[in-house]
């Protein structure tokens, strides 16, 4: 079976959860070969974290140029690995960086690119949700080796015995891919809460919070949920824009989405309407969010949320 390459994201010390998800997708279309691009001396520790996944082989490229020069250098590495492994497709997890790498790699290797797939079939056709989840599209790359980015949490990572083998691969990065100099890099400031795009439950606040996210956060902490915000709330400076859900923010598709004080303008709906279950709390009975909600409460979030929290706590106990 043909190799299917997939890029394994990590933060230098920890492999991302998407690695197992991509391996499972890759296995559906071929023989999964993971690629780890890491600084000198840190590849083995990362590869060792892939035990129990469906990753069959890992190619480890230790090269310090990627951390120094960024995306063009990463593309160069992947193109060289692809030239060696001759894959039938290359998979990358959807993120700002993942999509940029995919787009450039597609141009460099002469293949088509598809972004933000939520499913991948054995014939390499993909499913995407477009225009804010109002349409579902099936697409396929018809020229060259397809480069496909897949949204995190699109599948459950399967269990396997991998990785069977870890091999080192040396690359040389040319000057043309080193034109950018990265002088400093800081990881994201992580609270104790899960990432928006990976969370099973998202609870978001909008204009109705009036800038007070205390109740929204308290509910999030009780449920182990991520906190989102509408554009109105981030524009007002009430919550960091990295938490914005909507057309110009993040797209989320959790098991449960709780919209608090959010009217549900199309701008916001575009980022959350593919959520499995939607709950809305809003004072305005005419708010369009209620058209989407499986369960809606017309009321004040500052009364409804604490009461719901106390009920959940007491019934769980």
């Amino acid at each position, binding site marked *: 079976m043909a190799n299917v390459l997939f890029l394994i994201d990590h933060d230098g010390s920890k492999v991302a959860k998407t690695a197992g998800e991509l391996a499972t997708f890759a296995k559906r279309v071929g023989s999964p070969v993971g690629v780890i691009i890491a600084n000198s001396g840190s590849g083995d520790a990362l590869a060792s974290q892939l035990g129990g996944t469906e990753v069959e082989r890992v190619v480890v490229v230790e090269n310090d140029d990627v951390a120094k020069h*960024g995306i063009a250098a990463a593309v160069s590495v992947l193109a060289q690995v692809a030239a060696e492994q001759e894959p039938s497709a290359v998979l990358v997890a959807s*993120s700002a*960086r993942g*999509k*940029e*790498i*995919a*787009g*450039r790699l*597609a*141009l460099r290797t002469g293949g*088509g*690119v598809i*972004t*933000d797939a939520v499913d991948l079939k054995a014939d390499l056709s993909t499913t995407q*949700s*477009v*225009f804010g989840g*109002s*349409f*579902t*599209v*099936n697409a396929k*790359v*018809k020229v*060259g080796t397809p480069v496909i980015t897949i949204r995190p949490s699109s599948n459950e990572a399967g269990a396997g015995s991998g990785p069977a083998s870890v091999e080192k691969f040396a690359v040389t990065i040319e000057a043309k891919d080193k*034109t*950018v*100099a*990265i002088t*400093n*890099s*800081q*990881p994201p400031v992580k609270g104790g809460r899960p990432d928006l795009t990976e969370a099973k*439950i998202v609870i978001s606040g909008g204009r109705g919070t009036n800038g007070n996210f205390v109740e929204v956060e308290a509910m999030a902490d009780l*449920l182990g949920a991520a906190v989102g915000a509408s554009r109105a709330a981030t524009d007002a400076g009430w919550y960091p*824009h990295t938490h914005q859900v909507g*057309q*110009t923010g993040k797209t989320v598709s959790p098991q*449960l989405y709780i919209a608090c004080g959010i009217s549900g303008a*199309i701008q916001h709906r*575009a980022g959350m309407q*593919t959520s499995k*279950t*939607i*709950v809305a709390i809003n004072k305005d009975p005419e708010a369009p969010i*209620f058209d*989407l*909600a*499986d*369960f*809606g*409460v*017309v009321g004040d979030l500052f*009364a*409804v949320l604490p*009461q*719901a*929290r106390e009920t*959940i706590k007491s019934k769980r106990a």
Partner: protein
Amino acid sequence: MKIAICVKQVPDSWAEKKMVGGRLDRESVDAVLNDLDEYAIEEALRIIEPLNEGKETPEHTITLISMGPDRTTEAIRKGLSMGADSGLLVSDAALAGSDAVATAKVLSKVIQDGGFDLVFCGTESTDARMSVIPAMLAESLGWAQLTFAGSVKVDASAKSVEIARMTESGVENMSANFPCVVSVIEKINEPRYPSFKGIMAAKKKQIDTKALADIGIAAGDVGLSGAWSEVLEANPRPAREKGVKLEDAGDGGTKLADYLLEKRLV
């Protein structure tokens, strides 16, 4: 310093969209300048305005570049009314159905021919939302990629750019020498509204329209026939089933909690 800004005309992001034959029906909705492009225009204006101050003929200019049907000139005109100097539109029936690869080819060809130092972009268009074009332009031009900038510093005399890249992976400070492709995130600035004076001035500004033949790209390399990826099928998402809506009569929170517990959602 010559700056090109890639802009796109998109369906109003507040409008419901329709698809016909696997493609967006662009005729049925109001078309506007992609609002994320306005941040790129604003940022470029803030860079060149102080440098041009007091000069008879501006030494630093901004050209808006787009690809799309003829009515794209309306979106370009909006950017000109904000203060950009001129526009360039590649419009050709053969471009319909172009994918990201074809778009990158066309835009990078006119950028290359235009002798620009810098390209500015928004991070994505609000319709396709792929967020790949700035990176793909850097790839096809062979220029430095400085994307997802939350701040930009341009040193026109040293011909260098410094940005703070802000994404879900954190913040990275990076720099490069001209030529560069820069994309800016929407929190970088507050785009200006075109003034009455700006709108009047924009009417006199030049928008060049070019066909594929004018820029030396073969029709077969772009559009639906030249696309490297294809849409096999597109279906509207089924409407959600009507849910429960209740007034909070003092027990709304309890009822909500019961619903979540009963459905085993929490």
